[in-house]
């Protein structure tokens, strides 16, 4: 999964540059982190760790200080976990 995030980050900073819309490039790592955190169990912590690593990869290829994207993605993941745990109930969860 780390490798997938790394490849997505490389795609974002090279391949996707050619397909920007009005100067904006799709943040693949952010999308991946959101999807991982939505589809895994709200009590599973893997999504949060992956958010940290995804943020690290984005930070490396960004001009911002090291930690900006780590903080942004970690906050996104934690917030998603919180909302999904506290306010969202999936019918499938009853079977588990």
């Amino acid at each position, binding site marked *: 999964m780390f490798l997938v995030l790394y*490849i997505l980050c*490389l*795609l*974002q*900073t*090279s*391949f*996707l*540059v*050619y*397909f*920007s819309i*009005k*100067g*904006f*490039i799709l*943040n693949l790592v952010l999308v991946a982190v959101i999807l991982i955190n939505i589809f895994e169990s709200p009590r599973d*912590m893997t999504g949060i760790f992956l958010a*940290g690593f995804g943020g690290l990869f*984005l930070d*490396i*290829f*960004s*001009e*911002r*200080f*090291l*930690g900006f994207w*780590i903080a942004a993605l*970690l906050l996104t993941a934690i917030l998603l976990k919180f909302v999904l745990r506290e306010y969202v109930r999936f019918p499938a969860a009853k079977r588990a």
Partner: protein
Amino acid sequence: MKLSSRSKFGIIIAVLIILLVVFNLTGFSKSIRSLFFSISWPIQKSFWGIGDSISNFFGSISEGERVWLENEELKLKIQELTAENVALSNLKEENESLRGALDLGLKKEFELSFAEIISKDVSQDFILIDKGSKDGIEKGMPVITWQKALVGRVYEVYNGFSKVILISSKESSFDAQISGQDISGVVKGKGNLSLYLDFVPKEEEVKKDDIVVTTSLGELFPSGILVGKISDIKKSDLEPFQEDNISPAFDLKETRDVFVITNYLK
């Protein structure tokens, strides 16, 4: 003593914050980035190439008609330019012989270092090139395209790579003038590959498609390097200066190689 999972998580976050602060303050983050750049460089280069080919393929399909018209227009322009070129080379010869006669000597041409673009920053106004301190690149060196269009300047230097801040970055500002006229101002970046000419009094007659070139006033860039064309002029009765939007001369989507001017002394 057994720690709860919440406490463990808090400790991990605290350690992470301390590590990141230390990395940023000690400059260790630079070494981490340099290591990742050297690992990622071949993969990014391939992705960049694939993106270029795919974009060109789809671009040529959707813009077929426009390209054909542009081609016809360019053919005419080539004829005009060829005639102009012949006239200019005559003038150049004459100029050179006059300079020689006056014993002035020709100004040294720029020393250029060829570099390939490896990646663009997610925020779009930075690029990464494959030349670094081992190739003699230093912070602040101007970066241009082969058409002598200004791209930006070196912002951060690693061993084998450098980060270039584009002239369109919000952090970028430098002195410039309208080519062939005595109108000067400051070019400022707006972000997202757009920029504008500021501090031009509104009484000055700036026209659309006027060419903007650098001046050596701020000693950031050599004079006479192409910045772009005026695309839009905004004048307000309340403001003493007009704001002229510039369409940059470089096209980052079409640019894969750049040149770093290594002998421009600040």
